[in-house]
């Protein structure tokens, strides 16, 4: 177990190192280079030369990369070219918003997806199964920003069930502790703030959950069908175990392994989908920062930091998923 962790951490370090080179190269190949990107069109040659020197672009490339690495490691991503705020403070505001949204979406996707996939497999070829097959195919074929507008139109314009945008009602004076509004409300016992945050969370989370939900239903269904055909299930049934025990201990537990992998991989879809969903619901998270940093003049320091953060989250989640195999699958634990 320990060896697995160490090996995966080493792999993580290698991937992050490669990623840092990629981001560095990416920054240097910006149109006109990073200096022009920061100065804009009206830069005089003197100011240009000054900035080139100040930023160290006259140094050899390896020195530049080393400095870039040093700055990145201490969390110094520079300042936003739009607002002048430090990128770190922008991330501090936006990161919890996106994590709250993606976690809520994942709860919906897993909470509904696993039972639905299981039901589809159990009633294979019958109504629930056919419905789930068609439903999941439509689910992965629909552009999620369109679905977001659709849901917003129905549930806020016509039914007035949910608020149209934002994370919390205007005038709700909630205390910020962690930046996760639902959690903050619980920590400070401002229950109304928590409830309000959840109320704002439902529509965006449901929108964002569509694709992972569809994928999880499909994988669960396929995986349960596979396991149902296994000899050990037949053996368990033949031994006279109660159907419920066979289902929980033999079928579901073994079927969950591919599902867990999928959950890890779907984190990527969630982070990408968050960019679109956050724009529809004006959420103010990492996705909003990405959208703002590319509209009009591009805010490269913010964009670079957000993209790198997203990659790190994705890699770490998948690492955790790999490690969780050890808990779920005893065969991995032995090794």
């Amino acid at each position: 177990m320990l060896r697995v962790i160490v090996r995966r951490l080493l792999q993580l370090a290698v991937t992050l190192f490669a990623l840092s080179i990629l981001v560095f190269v990416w920054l240097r190949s910006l149109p006109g280079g990073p200096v022009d990107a920061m100065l804009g069109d009206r830069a005089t040659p003197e100011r240009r030369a000054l900035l080139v020197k100040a930023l160290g672009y006259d140094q050899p490339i390896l020195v530049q990369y080393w400095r870039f690495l040093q700055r990145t490691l201490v969390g110094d991503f520079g300042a936003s070219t739009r607002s002048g705020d430090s990128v770190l403070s922008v991330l501090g505001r936006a990161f919890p918003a996106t994590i709250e949204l993606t976690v809520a979406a994942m709860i919906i996707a897993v909470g509904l997806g696993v039972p639905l996939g299981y039901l589809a497999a159990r009633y294979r070829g019958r109504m629930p199964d056919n419905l789930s097959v068609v439903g999941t195919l439509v689910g992965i074929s629909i552009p999620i920003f369109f679905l977001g507008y659709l849901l917003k139109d129905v549930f806020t314009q016509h039914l007035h069930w949910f608020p149209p945008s934002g994370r919390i009602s205007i005038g709700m004076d909630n205390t910020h502790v962690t930046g996760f509004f639902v959690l903050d409300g619980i920590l400070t016992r401002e229950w109304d703030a928590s409830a309000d945050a959840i109320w704002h969370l439902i529509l965006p989370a449901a929108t964002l959950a569509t694709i992972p939900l569809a994928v999880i239903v499909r994988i669960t269904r396929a995986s349960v069908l596979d396991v149902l055909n296994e000899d050990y299930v037949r053996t368990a049934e033949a031994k006279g175990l109660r159907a419920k025990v066979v289902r929980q201990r033999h079928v579901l537990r073994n079927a969950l392994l591919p599902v867990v992998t999928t959950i890890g991989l779907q984190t990527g879809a969630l982070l990408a989908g968050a960019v679109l969903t956050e724009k529809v619901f004006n959420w103010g998270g990492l996705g909003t920062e990405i959208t703002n940093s590319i509209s009009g003049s591009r805010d490269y320091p913010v964009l670079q930091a957000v993209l790198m953060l997203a990659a790190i989250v994705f890699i770490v989640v998948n690492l955790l998923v790999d490690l969780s195999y050890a808990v779920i699958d005893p065969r991995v634990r032995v090794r």
Partner: protein
Amino acid sequence: MTNVLAEKKKARLEQLAQAAAEPGGVGLWREALRRLRRNPAGMVGAVIVLAFLLLAVFAPLIAPHDPAQRFKELTDNLRADHIPGAMSGFPLGGDPNGRDFLSRLIYGSRQTLFVGVLATLIGLTAGVTIGALAGALGGWVDMLLMRLTDVMLALPSLLLAISLVALASKSSQWTVIAAVATVNVPIFARLLRGAMLAQRESDHVLAARSLGVKQRAIVLRHMLPNSLTAVIVQATLTFSVAILDAAALSFLGLGDPDINRAEWGLMLGTDGQRYFEVRPELAYYPAIAIVVVALGFTLLGEAMRESIDPKNRR
């Protein structure tokens, strides 16, 4: 004399080796096609894809008007809060620029096909090249190329596409195609490499190698053709992803800036979103078109995957 005989013998054995790669003697694709015909979902997908292709090819004959032309009837009552609806001659009404919406939808199939096919093909070609090199050469080339795909896969695909589009100072149709194509490169590369590795250990490759066939010929004539099936299936599935990603980029304001170009993702991502409150049809119809076509390609791709899967062979 003996040399010629040996060559002939070699050629014959090579043929045998190739025949061995096609189990049962029936061609893989013919067998797959037979099974595909029995799969109703696959047939629905095939019909949708075919209809879409016909619509795109014959768009100039089907569309009632020029998609870029502005009509007086449609611009007369055009305001930010009012876009003319259906009227005689214009069954679906106009768009925010006073052009015929139906004609734009029909012509949109062309652009959508163009973007989707080109992005898929470029991604496939680059991915297959990388995968083939990695699979054929092995060693440190393989290591290096696979770590590269690892890093590309470490970024969620849409985010990678966004960062690529942001590299260009001005976005255009080509930046969108390039970005969507690049995102798919690591997927194709991984897929082909896996298939090549499996081929490397297979009997027919061993037979060819023991006959003294050159490494180059083994890779090009034996390993590559037999590894391509999985890639072709993936390409069908990638097409849906490509048009959905292109639509997402348009929605984020990173799409094609040419307002005369009719493309579904663009129509949905720009006008459809901007005028959703005024005339939701501007969003609904391109969205439905995208969903149906994406669904068609997914159904077809899944059915193809099932039909070439040896597990389903009887």
